[in-house]
């Protein structure tokens, strides 16, 4: 290799080749377009942040322990609130039955 570099003809040839390489002219607004493409490339990465957050939440929800605890909590809350409401309904129904038995609609 060192031998090849020492040939003066090759140096000349290299210089000629470098001169013959034409650098193409840049298209108009080249730099601006480059920045725009960079910004566009970064934009999906930003929206991907919310997807990542949702994915983390879904992963948490699908954990068996968390899912079981949530289902149990929902059932307990539902049954307690329903029982409270049912007690009120039963009380009103019983009151209405008694009132209807002692005071017919025709005299009220």
């Amino acid at each position, binding site marked *: 290799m060192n031998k090849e570099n020492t040939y003066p003809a090759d140096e000349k040839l290299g210089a000629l080749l470098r001169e013959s390489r034409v650098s193409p002219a840049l298209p108009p607004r080249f730099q601006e377009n480059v920045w725009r493409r960079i910004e566009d490339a970064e934009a999906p990465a930003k929206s991907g942040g919310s997807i990542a957050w949702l994915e983390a939440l879904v992963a948490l929800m699908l954990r068996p322990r968390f899912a079981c605890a949530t289902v149990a909590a929902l059932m307990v809350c539902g049954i307690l609130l329903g*029982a409270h409401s049912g007690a009120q309904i039963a009380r009103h129904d019983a009151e209405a039955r008694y*009132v209807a038995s*002692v005071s017919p609609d025709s*005299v009220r």
Partner: protein
Amino acid sequence: MNRPLVIFLGVLVLGAAIFTGSYFAGQRACANMMQGADDLSWLQTEFHLSDAEMAHVRQLHEGYLPQCMKLCAKIAAKKDEVAVALANGTNVTAEVQKKLAELGELHAQCQAQMLQHFVDVSRAMPPEEGRQYLAEMERITIGFDGVEQSMSPSGHGNN
């Protein structure tokens, strides 16, 4: 729509369904469980009556019902008479007025009898519960608390 969002929405719907199902199951179970055996069960639970007090109240109730039904039958018959009298003409005749007065008299008798029954029942209860019962029954059946306000001059406006 992306997959995590679909799963998230599915989980929310499932959670809402579990809660709603539990709510209505609890409501129905409790309402069925607390449903009284007869018309008087409300008195025992609401006013914490003992079995002896309840037996006395039941006796009063059974004594009152035939009288109540008798007056109700008279009221129904009088209403029919008023309807017939009204159907015979287009004016409020003397006969219609007489029938209406008789109907009002029957209503008054029925209400007086009913109030007397409430007083009797309230005396069969402990004093505080008796007062509460009487106030509640007067409010429900006669409309005390509400009727007086709506019938007052201010309730009628200034016309």
